[in-house]
C-alpha cells in the first residue's frame, strides 16, 4: 500500500499462510494451465491452414502459462496474510490486485472450514467467515490444517458469546 500524508495507515495482518500453500497453488495452476495449453495446441494442430502467427499466439499462451505457474504461487504467498484478534478478523489476499478485508467479530454469523481433496494432500484447510452481508465473507485460504482447527474453535467460542442478530 502506498502511504501518503501523516494519517495512520493500515498495517498488514500478522501471520502468513502455510508455506505448503505454494505447492498447492502451483499444482492447481498447473492442472488448469496444462489443460488450457493442450486445448490450444490441439485446436492449432487440428484446424487446417491456420496462418503462422496463430502458432506464435499458442507459443505465447504457453509462455504466459509457465510464468503463471512459476510466479503466481510465490507472489500470492507473499501477499496472503491473516490475523484474528478478539474484536476483528483481518485478511489480505490477491496477487495482481490486493484485497484487504476487515470484519468485526461481533458481526460474524458463521464460521466454516473447508478442505478440498488436493488441499488434504498438502495438509491445508481454508476458513470462511460470513457476516450478514453478501459482500462480506472473509476467506483465509490455505492455512495449515491444525491452525485452521484452532482458529475455527476460537472464532466459534467468541461468536457464541455475542447475542446480537448481527445485522
Amino acid at each position, binding site marked *: *500500500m*502506498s*502511504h*501518503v*500524508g*501523516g*494519517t*495512520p*495507515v*493500515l*498495517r498488514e*495482518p500478522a501471520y502468513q499462510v502455510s508455506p505448503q500453500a505454494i505447492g498447492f497453488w502451483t499444482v492447481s495452476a498447473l492442472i488448469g494451465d496444462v489443460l488450457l495449453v493442450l486445448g490450444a495446441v490441439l485446436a492449432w494442430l487440428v484446424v487446417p491452414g491456420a496462418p503462422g502467427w496463430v502458432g506464435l499466439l499458442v507459443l505465447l499462451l504457453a509462455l504466459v502459462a509457465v510464468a503463471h505457474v512459476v510466479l503466481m504461487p510465490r507472489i500470492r504467498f507473499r501477499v496472503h496474510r491473516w*490475523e484474528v*484478534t478478539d*474484536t*476483528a478478523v*483481518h485478511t489480505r489476499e*490477491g496477487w*495482481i*490486485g*490486493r*484485497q*484487504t*478485508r*476487515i*470484519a*468485526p467479530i461481533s*458481526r460474524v454469523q458463521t464460521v466454516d472450514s473447508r478442505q478440498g481433496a488436493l488441499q488434504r494432500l498438502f495438509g491445508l484447510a481454508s476458513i470462511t467467515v460470513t*457476516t*450478514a*452481508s*453478501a*459482500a*462480506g465473507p*472473509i476467506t483465509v485460504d490455505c492455512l495449515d490444517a491444525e491452525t485452521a482447527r484452532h482458529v475455527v474453535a476460537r472464532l466459534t467460542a467468541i461468536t457464541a458469546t455475542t447475542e446480537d*442478530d*448481527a*445485522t
Partner: protein
Amino acid sequence: MIPAPGSPGEGWSRLSPRKLLLDPVKAIGQAIVPVVIALVGISQSDTRFWPFIFPVVVVAPLVFGALPWLTTHYRLTDSQIQVRSGVLNKTTSTAPLDRVRSVDLEASLLHRVLGLQKVQVGTGVDDDRITLDALALADAQALRTTLLRRREAEQPAAAPVLPAEDGAPAPAVVPTPPPSPTLLARIDWSWLRFAPFSLARLVLLAGAVGVVAQFGDDLPIWNEETATSAWAWITQFAIALVALVLAVGGLALWLVVSVAGYVVQWWGFRLVREHGSLHLTSGLFTTRSITVEEAKVRGVELVDPLLMRLVGGAELSTLATGVEDGVTQVLPPCPRAVAIGVGESVLDQPGPLTEPLVEHGPRAHRRAWFRQLGNAVDVTVVAGVAWWLLDFSGLWVLGVALAALLLAAVAGEASYRHLGHALHERHLVAGSGTLARVRTVLETDGIIGWVVSQSWWQRRIGLADLTATTAAGAERVLVRDVRVDVAVALADRATPGLLTDFLEPA
C-alpha cells in the same frame, strides 16, 4: 371464518372462503392454453371422449383450486404466527412475532373484486416470507395492525392473540390506542411530468413491440404482396418524412405508455409513518401495500436518472435489512426537493442528502476517464473483429470507434462528477453512478465490515475501492477510486475502534 372441523389444535383459522372463487379462476386461467389445445386435438379426431374429457377439464381446476383453501390454516399464538399448508407434504411455517419485520398487503384486480388481500409477513431471514393468500380485507388489515402494533409495543404481558371465532383476529387485544399516522408524501399529479423521462418502462414497451411483431405475421394486411406495394408507395415520399412520422409516432406512443404506466402504478400513492414503520400504498388495478420497519432501515439511496435530471426529478429508495429485496423504492419519480425531504425525514437528519461530497482528486478523475476509454476500446475491438470476419466497409468501424470514444468521454467525465464521499455524523455517504447520479447514505451502525480492494492499475497510483459491507439494501456501499490513506481514515472514523488494532502511524 369458522375453524374447520378436524382442524388440529386451538385457534386455527382458514383463509377467506372467497378464495374458493379466486383459485379456480386462476387455475383455469393457467390451464386454459393446454386445455384448449387438447380439446381442439380431440375434437378433430374423435368426439366419443367428450363425456370423459369435459368433467376433467371443468372439475380439475375446481378441485385443485379448492385444495389450498382446504389445506391451509393459520393462527396467531402469543409468541408466534403459524401457517400450515400442503396436501401430501405438510409444511408448517412459523415466525416468532418479535421477528416480524414487515407485513405487506397486495391485491390483484381479481382479489379486489372479491374483497380479498394477499398478506406477506417478512421476518429476519431474507428470502423467507410467510404468505397468506388470501384473507378478507378486514381480516388482513386487522392482522397487519395486530402484528405491527405488537412488535412496536413489545409489552411483556400481552394477552394471547388468538383469532376470535368470528374470524376477526381479536381487535381488542392491544389496549394502547394506535399513534396517529404521519403522512410523509402522497401523489401529486403534477409529478406526471416526470413519467416520460423515466426510462424503466421503455423496456416493457420494447417487449410489447416484440410481441406485436410476432403476431404481425398473422395479420391479414401483412402478406408479402401488400408489403411490396406499400414499400413502393412509401418510397415515393421522402425518406425523411417517413422517419419523421415514425419518430413522432414513437414519441407519442411513449408519452401515452409512460403516463399510463405511471398512473397505473402510483394511483392513490401514500407514504405514511405509523407503528414505527414506513407504510406505502399505491396502485390502480393491483394495489400494493408495502411496510418497512424503520428500525431496520439503515439508509436511503437517492437516484437522479439521466433524463430525469433535465427536469429536476429524482427517485428515492430505502435500504433495509431483513426484507426480501433490501432496496425498496418508496417514492414515484418526483421533484428532487420532495425526494430529499422524505429522505431526510426517513434518516431523521438533514444533511447527508444535500451536503457536498469530498472529491477524489485528479488521479481518480484520470481513472474515471480511462475506465470508460477501456470500454470504448473493447467496443472498437469487437467492431474490428466483426469487420475482419464479415468484410463490410471499414468506415463503419471508424464510425463505431468515434461514437464509442465520444460516449466514453462523456461517461468518464460524468462518472467523475458523480464520484465522492462524505462522513456525516452517523452516516456514510457515497456518490456514484455513470450516467445517473446516485447518492447512497448508510448509517455507520449498519456497517459490518470493510473491504479495501486495489486493482493493478489502482496500485500504480495509490487509489483503492473502499467497500462498506452491510446487511441492508444491496449489502454493500462502494466508495470508488479513493486515495488509500483517505479510505483508511474514512473507515476508521466511520467505525471507531474497529480498525484501531490494525493501524500504525505513517
